[in-house]
């Protein structure tokens, strides 16, 4: 799962730093106790030396035992050998016993130091160390977070600018060339270059489509005029007439496609700057009436059109948009089907009965996509709808359920 850079960074720190610090604490504890033991041993030995020295001087007049300090014992021969090693006792002392020889008599001298203070000191030092380690951990994470936030700021700015970039809607793309970080300067430079190229390619493509469509108009006009002359030739047989009819239809479809492409290119090139309040209620009623006159078996209509609904846009484009939507609902209808048109402020819905489509609904809006391969349409109608809707920030929605197609347009 993806996380932000900062989250990732904090997570790494939170995983590895405590481990390192824990190992550090363990080592510290070992070394600390080692040093403390050593110190205790030295203390006990020093005490032994001093007491034995005092005993050799003052002899038996010295007390043989002082609680918590030392104990002197005469040893019988049977006594076993003892190792001169510090031993922790249950009574809260650490003791060291050594054998000494004075005037043929073997003595065992045991010296005491309290082990309570020693344990307290160890705990205190270790606790302080833990507090310092936690402080270090928190500081490292906080400093790291704030510094990385500052370091990565140019990157996030670049990311934001790139996110807002759209080759169609907002091709203007400006990134600061100086961020103070070489890598980001380079990133911005490369991105600016890349997007400059994208814009260039898109513009030349737009220009190409427009120029090509313009150039195609003339040969189309020539073909059409020759066909007009040809169908009036004397001695036309039924066979040639059929051929001519097919040519005429193909040529008309070509002209129609070309006109749609030209319109798309013009929308791309922002050649429809004039805007006005378009009365959609009137427009829809007119369009439906027109289409009803055009088709012999026009589907049954159910209209719920609220009056005085306006869109601020270019009137020709709005007409093209709704005309295409309605035509779509008519052409892709079932025989004896129906069309429902709902219009209210901010929303228009066109619903029609029709056959199932097998493709992904979103692809219907792509250029030259056809829901039905056999249909003699240009495959550009819905992509025009999408383009116009996009231009004015409207939302198009298509859904299909139980042989009912519905297009929703929110504006």
């Amino acid at each position, binding site marked *: 799962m993806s996380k932000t850079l900062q989250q990732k960074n904090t997570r790494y720190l939170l995983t590895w730093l405590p481990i390192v610090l824990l190992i550090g604490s363990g080592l510290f504890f070992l070394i600390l106790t080692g040093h403390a033991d050593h110190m205790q041993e030295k203390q006990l030995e020093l005490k032994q030396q001093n007491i034995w020295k005092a005993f050799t001087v003052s002899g038996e007049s010295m007390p043989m035992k002082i609680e918590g300090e030392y104990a002197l014992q005469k040893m019988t021969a049977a006594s076993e050998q003892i190792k001169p090693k510090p031993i922790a006792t249950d009574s809260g002392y650490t003791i060291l016993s050594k054998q000494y020889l004075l005037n043929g008599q073997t003595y065992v001298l045991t010296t005491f130091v309290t082990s309570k203070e020693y344990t307290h000191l160890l705990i205190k030092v270790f606790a302080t160390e833990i507090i310092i380690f936690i402080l270090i951990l928190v500081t490292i994470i906080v400093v790291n977070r704030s510094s990385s936030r500052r370091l990565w700021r140019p990157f996030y700015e670049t990311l934001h600018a790139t996110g807002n970039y759209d080759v169609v809607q907002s091709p203007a793309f400006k990134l600061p060339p100086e961020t103070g970080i070489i890598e980001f300067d380079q990133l911005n430079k490369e991105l600016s270059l890349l997007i400059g190229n994208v814009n260039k390619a898109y513009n030349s493509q737009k220009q190409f489509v427009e120029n090509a469509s313009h150039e195609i108009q003339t040969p189309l006009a020539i073909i059409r*005029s020759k066909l*007009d002359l040809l*169908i*009036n030739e004397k001695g036309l047989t039924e066979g040639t007439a*059929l051929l001519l009819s097919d040519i005429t239809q193909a040529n008309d479809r070509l002209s129609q496609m070309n006109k749609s492409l030209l319109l798309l290119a013009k929308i791309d090139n922002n050649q429809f700057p004039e805007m006005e309040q378009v009365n959609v209620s009137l427009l829809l009623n007119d369009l439906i009436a*027109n289409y009803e006159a055009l*088709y012999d078996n026009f589907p049954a209509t159910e209209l719920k059109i609220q009056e005085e609904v306006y869109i601020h846009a270019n009137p020709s484009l709005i007409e093209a948009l709704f005309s295409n939507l309605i035509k779509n609902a008519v*052409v892709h209808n079932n025989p004896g089907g129906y069309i429902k048109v709902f219009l209210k402020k901010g929303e228009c819905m066109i619903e029609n009965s029709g056959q199932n489509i097998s493709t992904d609904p979103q692809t219907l809006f792509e250029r030259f996509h056809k829901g039905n391969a056999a249909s003699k349409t240009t495959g550009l109608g819905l992509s025009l709808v999408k383009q116009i809707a996009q231009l004015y920030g409207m939302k198009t929605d298509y859904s299909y359920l139980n042989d009912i197609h519905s297009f929703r347009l929110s504006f």
Partner: protein
Amino acid sequence: MAWLNQISPKSCRSLAQSRWMKLLIIEDENSLRRSIAAYFDQEGFLCEQAGSYGEGVQKAEGFQYDCIILDINLPGGSGLQLLDYLRKDKKTEGIIIISARDAVEDRITGLDLGADDYLTKPFHLSELFARVKALIRRKYAAGNNILEFEKLKLDLSLKTLTYNSEQVSLTKNEFEVLLFLLTNKNRVVSRQAIAEHIYGEQTDNLASFDFVYSHIKNIKRKLKEKGAGELLQAVYGLGYKISI
């Protein structure tokens, strides 16, 4: 119609029920220009042709025409410039612009400069012909808005039709279809041309020519009821023709 050339202008006038119409076609595309000329020739127009701005100016200045068909993109200058020049020169010919540019502004600019009509390429020759005829009617037959073809009589301002002085009630579209066919009489007019004539640019969105068929069917039926013969013929699924 080469035989027509041998007939004196006077007899021609009576034959065509009017004087010879003179037409200047300024269009740089040879092939398209020849098509237009051929169509109008067959209709008894006298056609002059020009393929460039300079040639256009020269021909327009030298003679008086009834109508000029003007392309916008011309070698040597723009058709709009030529239009401006002619209007400033007090030339009053009817001018129809034919252009591949269909933007509203182009249309408005053209009409503002004094063009009488604007037709976008590609167009049907029958449509261009109907536009020219309508323009000539508007310009030269002031007040006379009655068209007569044998027993058919069309009142263009009231949009009514009588056959043998009997009123035939047609819808607006049926009237327009009939007028279009009559204007292009004795010629096959394609279904597409009829569709575009009635519904203009919007026909681009049509996948069906059903309505042309039903209009024709209705006109035929209504004329038959008044006793008119088979005036309207379908030609092999290509289109329709009125023979008089």
